[in-house]
């Protein structure tokens, strides 16, 4: 029984969400809303989506009991939902396939995307190649530098990567630029947003396409241990991997849902990307109302995180809502804590995690210590860390 029924017809999660866009985009969003409503329960569409998830992505992704890590940490058993094993190396592909199939049905020959770490850009370029769609990816020039392997990957897949030089040159600026492209080319272009932010219906649609993570996990946990975990932990930038695993668990009692934001150099320094943990004020950015890192004049302030994928001043509106209704908890992990967890997983389990996911791992380690050995924490291991080796090497003063 699904008791939780959000958002409302206009995309509001309480005071959050909505459609805060320039008039030029209203019609395009309305078209998208109508088309998504038409196909979200359409058996043929869903079968096509499920086929690609199975045969192209390699789903279901397994759940893995990280025994050595659990023993080393001491306390609760840590299980990992292995989204890092997906084709293209992260959860992002779940969503890009769904949206690209929708683009195809809407007759749009061109797709665009914004990307931070590059995982969403790669996932978009991948499905665009597979479906024969033209693909343009906007990426902050700062991120282009720190995620060079993913930039090359996108180019190999036939996408055009446009470095964005404005503002802080990171994810939010890439999103601005993608919006500008969409306003201009709305007749032939589908904008594949990579996270549970943006105007309605994106936060809902991206959540629905990512919910496969939590739907699988609920079945797999029963098969593996005969019960659901005591806590589900996932990292939150915009929050798509977290929403994906949280959503099917919202109505399951006694399962704690914990989102882990990036505390960067430390919450007290102000150099972080953790609007929920910092109790940032509510504002409007990128088409929705949510908690936002901003100054007294309402200008967005620059964020900091070692992981490009978490380097975002806002958060998906549904996370803002889940925080307010106290269904989910939000905490933050510093760059240093995430790096330690990164190395820990490499050495104890033979898995190189993405720096984003390392934030969730770091908090799971902290939490596990406060719990007993028969309790279970399920961590969404949202991506693999191959893309991060340059960043990690640089931090350790190693030349590759």
């Amino acid at each position: 029984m699904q008791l939780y029924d959000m958002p409302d017809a206009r995309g509001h999660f309480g005071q959050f969400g909505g459609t805060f866009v320039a008039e030029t985009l209203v019609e395009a969003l309305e078209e998208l809303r109508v088309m998504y409503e038409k196909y979200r329960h359409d058996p043929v569409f869903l079968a096509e989506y499920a086929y690609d998830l199975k045969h192209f992505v390699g789903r279901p992704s397994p759940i893995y009991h990280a025994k050595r890590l659990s023993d080393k940490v001491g306390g609760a058993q840590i299980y990992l939902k292995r989204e890092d094993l997906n084709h293209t190396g992260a959860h992002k592909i779940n969503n890009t396939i769904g949206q690209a199939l929708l683009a195809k049905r809407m007759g749009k020959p061109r797709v665009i995307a914004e990307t931070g770490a590059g995982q969403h850009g790669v996932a978009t370029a991948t499905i665009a190649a597979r479906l024969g769609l033209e693909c343009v990816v906007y990426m902050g020039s700062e991120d282009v530098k720190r995620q060079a392997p993913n930039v090359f990957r996108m180019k190999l897949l036939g996408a055009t990567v446009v470095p964005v030089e404005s503002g802080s040159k990171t994810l939010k600026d890439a999103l601005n630029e993608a919006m500008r492209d969409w306003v201009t080319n709305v007749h032939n272009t589908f904008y594949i947003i990579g996270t549970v932010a943006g105007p309605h219906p994106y936060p809902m649609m991206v959540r629905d396409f990512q919910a496969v993570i939590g739907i699988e996990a609920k079945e797999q946990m029963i098969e593996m241990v005969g019960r659901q975990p005591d806590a589900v932990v996932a990292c939150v930038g915009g929050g798509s991997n977290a929403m994906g695993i949280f959503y099917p668990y919202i109505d399951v009692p006694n399962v704690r849902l914990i989102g882990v934001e990036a505390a960067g150099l430390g919450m007290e320094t102000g150099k972080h990307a953790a609007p929920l943990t910092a109790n940032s004020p509510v504002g409007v950015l990128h088409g929705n109302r949510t908690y936002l890192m901003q100054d007294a004049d309402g200008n967005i302030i620059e964020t900091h995180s070692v992981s490009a994928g978490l380097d975002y001043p806002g958060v998906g509106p549904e996370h803002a809502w889940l925080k307010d209704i106290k269904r989910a908890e939000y905490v933050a992990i510093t760059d240093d804590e995430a790096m330690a967890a990164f190395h820990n997983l490499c050495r104890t389990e033979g898995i190189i995690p993405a720096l984003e996911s390392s934030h969730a791992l770091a908090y799971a380690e902290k939490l596990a210590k406060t719990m007993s050995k028969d309790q279970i924490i399920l961590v969404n291991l949202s991506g693999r860390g191959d893309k991060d080796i340059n960043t990690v090497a640089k931090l350790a003063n190693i030349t590759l």
Partner: protein
Amino acid sequence: MSRIQTVFTALKQQGKTALIPYITAGDPHPKHTVNLMHTLVKHGADMIELGVPFSDPMADGPVIQRASERALLHKVGLTAVLAMVKTFRETNQTTPIILMGYANPIEAIGAAAFADRAKAADVDGVITVDYPPEECGDFVQQLRSRDIDPVFLLSPTTDQKRVDLIVNQASGFVYYVSLKGVTGAANLDINEVSQRVASIRTQTNLPVGVGFGIRDAATAKATAAIADAVVVGSRMVQTIEASNDENLLSNVATLMDELKAAVDAAK
């Protein structure tokens, strides 16, 4: 009668079209803004659209985005912009000032408090790019209860039903965005604009302004022939960007004279 209404009524009697230049407050430096506003008026501005700098101006092209970035370097936010309007009003009580910007600076203050402060600064109208009518009912009430005009944008993709919805919320005038795209794009189709403006006029008695893509005397003249107001933004900001402290006011004056002559020659 509001200042905006007064100006449109007077121009209509003279058979003329309003010229509305846009500048970003604080660009190139806050010390110039009030002087620039007076120069605009002296050289034919019937109203002024004053941009509120914002860190993430999603609906603007690179020209106006750079203007925002220049202003933000000097920490010009909404509070500073309202102070500039107040200073301008010390010597000009007749030219309508329309603030144009994004929702978040307003959200940071709160709708009611913003409306109070805008009224105290003697602002006449407010355009908020990312507040479509469905999302800003309270904001519109707060403005209208203080006799500030909420001005809304209409786009080539706005269907007739939405035009109805929007003109019911709007006052002062409506602003037809003449092309799909961000500010500063350069492909104005005057025939299409003409048809759309005629269609909008069947749904409202509010004056119809046209902007986006008006870059020179020729496009200003063509637009003035069909609209009640012509808005020139990116071209104005480009001229400011290309000027230095010495020639800033004279360069802007030259451009305004050229645009004013073109607009006046249209009807």
